[in-house]
């Protein structure tokens, strides 16, 4: 049984050649109120990782003037490549979804912030925008707003995936996260009310307008409506972007049926279900359904849908060390628990990796991670320790291998 569902992917792959920008024109005809009602009915939540209800976000700027809409295409999460897939395969679909969304939130400015490494996506999007005069004219006719779509190219900071950092980056200042409140919807880009949404979220808008909110909400399960693009990678036979109906497929099914199982003659060791900020699952935990609630209940998160599969050749310590290297480069350097916590964790894991670790490190790493998750300023810091701590908990063998016994003895003598 093939578990992939082809709801959004079909459009991405086949395109809408027969009638370009038809969803957008359909939205213009419906008017923004009716579009918004459909969005409310759909139960769509943000696909970037935070799963915030889109209608709630948009509703908060409904009567506001000068709204700025930013499409977040700074896909920096290791293991995620679904937005790239959309941009490279059907930039027109994204652009029309962006325009449709801009129409609904009554935006006066529209940005797309694309990860700098995505050179092909950048040039495709730019080209698409250059050719979109007719649509933009239609937009102006309907709304009276001469909308310009600006492409902003990211300079390579992971933290810019956070909406407030992204806004700072567009403003040309250091990309630190901002203190919330005020939320971007109150005071965002250059102090204007600002909506930031992920590529996939906006693309879903087109489908909601095409099929109606009720149909969209008939897909998926409570709290996780519609479908989700999954970036499947790691030690599997068929890595790639897949689409699933949320809550109807288990992690195991995704790996075995879509991914074709583990590559070569190896065993599954663990799975990271939502990018390197989420807790990993070991083999006996992966019968969990893939949707926001189920994964949360199981102690992890769906995040942006980056499922990374590891077999027994993968060393959990090495992976943890790489994750720590990553976070210590990518912390914005402003909030102390995140910066100093990652400094310590980075140091400890690097020492463990060269057999110079101490047993108490494992306790300290967990402690720092707890502190940081409670006190850090943005999502990066709050979730940076998730993967490491779950690795220590669930795959202790890998860690104790690196912690020499002689050190253990000495520690025990000390006590």
């Amino acid at each position, binding site marked *: 049984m093939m578990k992939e569902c082809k709801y959004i992917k079909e459009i991405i792959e086949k395109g809408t050649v027969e009638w370009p920008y038809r969803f957008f024109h359909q939205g213009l005809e419906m008017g923004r109120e009716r579009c918004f009602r459909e969005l409310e009915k759909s139960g769509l939540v943000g696909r970037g990782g935070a799963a915030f209800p889109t209608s709630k976000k948009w509703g908060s700027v409904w009567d506001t003037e000068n709204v700025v809409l930013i499409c977040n295409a700074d896909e920096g999460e290791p293991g995620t490549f679904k937005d790239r897939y959309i941009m490279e395969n059907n930039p027109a679909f994204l652009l029309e979804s962006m325009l449709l969304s801009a129409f609904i939130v009554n935006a006066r400015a529209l940005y797309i912030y694309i990860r700098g490494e995505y050179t092909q996506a950048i040039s495709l999007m730019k080209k698409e925008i250059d050719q979109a005069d007719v649509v933009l004219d239609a937009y102006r006719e309907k709304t009276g707003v001469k909308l310009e779509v600006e492409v902003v190219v990211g300079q390579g900071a992971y933290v810019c995936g956070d909406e407030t950092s992204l806004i700072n980056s567009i403003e040309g200042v250091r990309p630190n996260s901002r*203190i919330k409140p005020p939320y971007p919807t109150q005071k965002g880009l250059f102090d204007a009310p600002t909506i930031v949404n992920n590529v996939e979220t906006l693309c879903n808008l087109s489908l909601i307008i095409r099929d109606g909110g009720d149909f969209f909400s008939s897909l998926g399960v409570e709290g996780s409506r519609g479908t989700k693009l999954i970036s499947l990678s790691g030690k599997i036979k068929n890595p790639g972007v897949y689409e699933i109906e949320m809550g109807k497929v288990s992690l195991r099914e995704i790996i075995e049926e879509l991914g074709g199982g583990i590559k070569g003659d190896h065993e599954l060791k663990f799975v990271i279900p939502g990018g390197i900020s989420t807790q990993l699952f070991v083999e006996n935990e992966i019968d969990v359904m893939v949707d926001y609630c189920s994964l949360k209940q199981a102690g992890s998160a769906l995040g942006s849908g980056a499922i990374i599969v590891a077999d027994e050749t993968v060393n959990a310590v090495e992976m943890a060390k790489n994750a720590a290297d990553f976070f210590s*480069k*990518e*912390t914005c*350097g*402003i909030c102390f628990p995140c*910066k100093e916590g990652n400094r310590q964790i980075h*140091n*400890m894991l690097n020492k463990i990796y060269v057999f110079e670790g101490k047993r108490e490190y494992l306790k300290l790493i967990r402690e720092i991670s707890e502190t940081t998750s*409670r006190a850090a300023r943005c999502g990066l810091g709050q979730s940076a320790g998730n993967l490491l701590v779950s690795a220590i908990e669930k795959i202790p063998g890998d860690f104790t291998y690196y912690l020499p016994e002689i050190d253990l003895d000495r520690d025990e003598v000390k006590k």
Partner: protein
Amino acid sequence: MITLHINSQPIKVEAGTTILEAAKKLHYRIPTLCYKEGLSIYGGCRLCVVEVKGRSNLPIACAEEVQEGMEVFTHSDLVLETRRNIFQLLIANHPFDCQLNCLTCLKSSSCELRKLAEEIGVGQLKYEALHKPWTMDTSSRSVVIETSKCISCGRCVRTCNEIQHGGILTMSERGLATKVDTFMAKGLGNVDCTNCGQCILACPTGAIHEVYHVNQVIQAINDPDTHVVIQTAPAVRVAIGEEFGAPLGMNLEKKIVTALRKMGADKVFDTNFTADLTIIEEGTEFINRINHQGVLPIITSCSPGWIKFAEHNYPDLLPNISTCKSPQQMFGTLAKTYYAEKEKLSPDKIVSVSIMPCTAKKYELARDELKDDVDYVLTTRELAKLIRAYGLEFMNLPDGEYDQPFGISTGAAAIFGVSGGVMEAALRTGYELISGKELEELEFVDIRGLKGIKEAVVDIDGEKIRVAVANGLENAVQMLKHKEKYHFIEIMTCPGGCIGGGGQPISDVDNILEERMTGIYATDQKREIRKSHKNPAIIKLYEEFLGEPNGEKAHRLLHTHYMKR
């Protein structure tokens, strides 16, 4: 009004109040580090985390506004543990365990980290000390940055940007390497820094401090071949006591005189004397500009931070700035000319030292056009260091009197130390010189106080003279937008004027500037002569040496010029 509970106690506060402010009303002090009143909220240190019922993460008290029905716990177990751990993390990256850092640190007696450790309850290191490489920015003549001590709380950056309109300091690098730096890492001496030193006052860890001249001064004093003359600035005497437990704002000039004499200074003089002289020169310049359609408004030139700021940012305004040297530099010149002649000393045997509330004075003395007049500048803090180095029991010292001929000064000179003081002193003299009448009401209350921008209109013989006073460079920038409105402008670089200078003791008293200001005005009240042009020593100086105010000799010795930078 919003009702909430803090630690189970009800409290009503205005909407928009932060948890930190509300807790303060209930007498709970929540530890803070990157927070500083008057600066924007940074939200970096996270030490002020609190628990709010119903919230899974811990919000920070400095940024989180109260909400109806909120239940806040400022010292729950979870909060305390989190705070301790954050502090542990932070302290593990601050070098305190090697090279006797704590002993030699500027903040050894006022270290905020030490106070926090006590408050938060941290007595032992938990995490491994991971120190940054030992780097120092010594490119500036006034201010040193010891990056290794920096904890990136951003207080200096915000002070520079928000109070001083500087934009000199910024966060650079990324990730763990994030640090405070100057544009393109050029170093403080190679960027548009005004040397005001407000960043020093803002820094909680002593990572920024002045360029020390203490050792050079001790050497000069100990050298039998040199003749050391020391001048003391108006704002030093009301602040030095803070270092020795004296009542706040107390004028301790007489003890400073004794202390310096006991150290072996050959002569102890008063900068106030040349402050009076500045008034005569600047007042005359102002009258001349009014009478001969000169460039107006005239802007004061006493504050070297402002001068450099103007040279960088307001080159068009340079003709407006009074050509008078600052009191420090006038003193330096007179010490090596008039005084040297009088005492039959060779000028190159004289070592001229000034004690200033200011770090920019260290830069000023080395300006090309002013070179060699003053040799060393000690800040108020360095004076305290020096007093301690000589083991003097400062508060028990007997009173001493300033040496002549630069020891007599007026109340007008004393108030140079506060924002609005130079203006007030100039008006006292200007009024009488222009109108020929005696000024009855000496206090110009409109231009007193700590407000950032102050204005007044003074009626002199039917002529309405409009004056403005600004302290803090951000305020100066705002005020200069309407500069055409005025005839006479006083600008002081530091908030409050020299009493808030970057070289002053670092205090955690909230109203410290007011205390120092009160001390300054009390000094003025007590002086017998309160107008600069009535200073008998000044009159004598003109008769014996300078000739006419703004005359050829006065101009050659007491005036200077500026350059576009």
